[in-house]
């Protein structure tokens, strides 16, 4: 008799209120296998893994683990059996030490008391083994967001789980970090750990997976991986139609030579004398490792990191940008990489999430009032234009999937009629189809004169859209290049050369 597969999901359906999130989904994960889930935002990927982990009950269907029906077991018992979820959203304990985070839930004790020595020692070993160079006693609050994410995965690994579910673990990771993570996953796989892997990056999914299931509108489309599968094929399967990649048109808009933003000799938090012009209708790609000053540059222009000196001229006038409020008033908008903390307003509906940044702008009415009628009609326009998946603009934000939440944020920023849009990982967690929709919206607006600063670790995407590339290192701009026929390899080579030169 054959051993049953490690995990067997049979005919799962899930309905939230009136929204069907999953219909009749089945899949199997074998021991030491990596099963990837692909699908557009809101397709039901997170819902499915949450059901497997025991966070939500399914409406119908059942889940078998090592041949055993685990439908009635709660999350704790499932963890004991060896199912561990690394969720899509931030999940650590900021005020506890790295070591305690790794052990959380299962602190070892000696004589009834928590054995800090063992915790710290073992944590130090594991951190070293997984290549995370931090002291086990630092508080997680003090880690960079990348390190915090790695820590999250180490936590799941540490628990010795048989099945680890990684819900979009690679978003906003650099290529190198991504490669490290994959090495790490493969090592565990070799030792028999199975994975469910969720990602929007088709390349990495193909590279890593033993099996692939595409979810579309809650329905399942298994992919036959026995033959060669192409990215294009996967893309069309995910989207349900052919996906055409958006490309920057070579000829620029009429204002191509006018300068919108002129930055001279900026000094501040991780910025050491940055000067650059951003032209009207230009997309300026920004490249740099974390801590190089690239992100600080973007955030400084929006008043989010400290500036000590330097001048900024926007639209020909000298401006001070001490806060987002002023920046938005000057026509400068910013989308943060941290959607949860710096993006969505969880207590507001979709409508107001789109409108909130324009209350002092075009939604301003006499006597301190907000033009609510205009807000509604604009929100409705954005919902249609960006194909935001929701029942209506009155839906609450937490009923939207991550990618659709991002579209709402994009709408909010566009609604401020920006003259300069600063995009910090704008397509994080966004499915391939939505990503192209967002990108073409931005390309379109840029074509009509808006300037864009584009920061992303997805160099393939960056090279498709940018007119120029600036490379940051140690708080300085080290190279500026026109984006003509540069390949990803050349780009990383330049980036790494700058790093090594220092």
């Amino acid at each position, binding site marked *: 008799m054959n051993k049953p597969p490690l995990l067997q999901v049979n005919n799962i359906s899930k309905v939230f*209120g009136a929204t069907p999130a999953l219909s009749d989904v089945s899949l199997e994960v074998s021991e030491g296998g990596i099963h990837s889930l692909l699908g557009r935002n809101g397709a039901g990927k997170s819902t499915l893994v949450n059901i497997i982990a025991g966070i939500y009950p399914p409406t119908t269907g059942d889940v078998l683990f090592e041949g055993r029906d685990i439908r009635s077991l709660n999350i704790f018992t499932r963890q004991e059996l060896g199912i561990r979820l690394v969720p899509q959203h931030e999940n650590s304990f900021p005020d506890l030490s790295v070591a305690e985070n790794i052990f959380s839930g299962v602190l070892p004790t000696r004589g009834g008391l928590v054995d800090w020595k063992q915790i710290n020692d073992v944590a130090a070993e594991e951190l070293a083994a997984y290549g995370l160079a931090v002291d086990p006693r630092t508080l997680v609050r003090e880690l960079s967001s990348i390190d915090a994410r790695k820590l999250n995965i180490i936590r799941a690994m540490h628990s010795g789980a048989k099945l680890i579910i990684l819900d979009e673990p690679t978003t906003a990771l650099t290529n190198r970090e991504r490669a490290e993570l994959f090495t790490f996953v493969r090592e565990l796989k070799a030792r028999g750990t199975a994975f469910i892997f969720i990602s929007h990056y088709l390349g990495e999914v193909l590279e890593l997976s033993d099996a692939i299931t595409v979810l579309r509108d809650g329905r399942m489309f298994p992919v036959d991986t026995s033959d060669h599968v192409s990215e294009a094929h996967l893309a069309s399967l995910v989207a349900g139609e052919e996906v055409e990649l958006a490309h920057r048109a070579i000829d620029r808009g009429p204002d191509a030579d006018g300068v919108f933003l002129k930055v001279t000799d900026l000094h501040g938090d991780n910025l050491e004398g940055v000067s650059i012009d951003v032209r009207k209708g230009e997309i300026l790609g920004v490249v740099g490792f974390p801590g190089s000053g690239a992100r600080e540059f973007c955030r400084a222009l929006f008043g989010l990191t400290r500036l000590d000196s330097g001048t900024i001229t926007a639209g020909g006038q000298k401006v001070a940008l001490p806060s987002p409020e002023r*920046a938005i008033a000057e026509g400068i908008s910013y989308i943060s990489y941290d959607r949860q*903390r710096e993006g969505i307003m969880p207590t507001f509906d979709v409508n107001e999430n789109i409108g*909130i940044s324009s*209350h002092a702008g075009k939604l301003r009415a006499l006597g301190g009032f907000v033009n609510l009628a205009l807000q509604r009609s604009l929100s409705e326009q954005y919902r249609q234009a960006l194909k935001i998946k929701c029942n209506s603009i009155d839906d609450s934000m937490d009923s939207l999937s991550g990618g659709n939440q991002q579209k709402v944020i994009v709408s*909010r920023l566009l609604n401020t009629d920006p003259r300069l849009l600063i995009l910090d990982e704008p397509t994080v967690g966004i499915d391939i189809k939505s990503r192209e929709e967002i990108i073409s919206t931005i390309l379109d607006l840029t074509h009509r004169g808006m300037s864009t600063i584009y920061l992303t670790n997805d160099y393939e995407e960056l090279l498709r859209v940018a007119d120029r590339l600036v490379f940051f290192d140690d708080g300085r701009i080290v190279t500026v290049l026109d984006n003509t026929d540069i390949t990803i390899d050349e780009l990383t080579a330049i980036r790494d050369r700058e790093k090594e030169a220092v």
Partner: protein
Amino acid sequence: MQSTSAARKIVDFCMNQAVWILLVLSILIMGLFRSSFYSFGILSNILVQATVLGLLAIAISMIILLGDINLATVGTAGFSALIGVLAMKSGLPVLLSILLILVVGSLIGLVNGLIVTKLKANALITTLAMNMVLQGGLLAITGGTTISQLPDSYKFVSQGKIGAFPALPIVLIVAFAAFHVIWERTRFGRALFAVGGNYRGAYIAGINVERTKIWAYVVSGLLSGVAGWLLSGYMGAVTSSFGTTYEMQVIAAAVIGGVSLTGGRGSMLGVLAGTLLLTVIQVGLAILGIESTLITLAGGLMIFVAVLIDAVRNLYNARR
């Protein structure tokens, strides 16, 4: 199918209007025991007594909405009323004295706001300490005595009548209507919700969160000042333990009225319902002639029931 959805709609409605339904129920039950409860006199008394509580409840709700809390509303009311009344006693014209009360209230709010935003002090403990200082100041200045014999012109709103109808409830209605509009339709109001919902997110969305917070505290202080004026006019005196019985009720009214203590959620209509419910319970218990030692218990139990019903409502909404 049709009928279950109709039934569901009714349950939905009941759940969301729980406090209003409780209010109506309380009025019905009180009336069963004592029919005079439906008299014009008692019902207008309820409105009169709800006014001060209502103003203080709005004052605290402004801050709870931000995700903070303001425990100094009662102290602010007492202290600012004292200053105004003292100024009046030493010759300041009545209208200017009333204005002075509002100014003092707002200034206290400003101080709270500055401490909370600029020093990033915790709001609960800051306003708790501020309340002690204000109540201590009141006691120190009055030396434990009561200041009374306030001129009628000072009391014209608190005790005045328009025809047979007392003037005070008009303040209640106007205040709730005005703040309903402020909360729902103005930039300031929406900024309050945004800041309470996600502080950092609001900042990045271009809202001046510090200014919003400071203004909220100022408005909260101003409203407390108004409540201080009206309560002193109503009692015809400023006592050295001014308003202390409102202390607990103010929070209860706001929270029972559905203003979320984590910030970002709430409605004026809810706060109004909470205010009225507490007042009805209180007036009811008083005129039912219930055994004196049981009043606190009965009041506590009723608030407890309201809390439980509210919890069940939230649970219901979350499960839906």
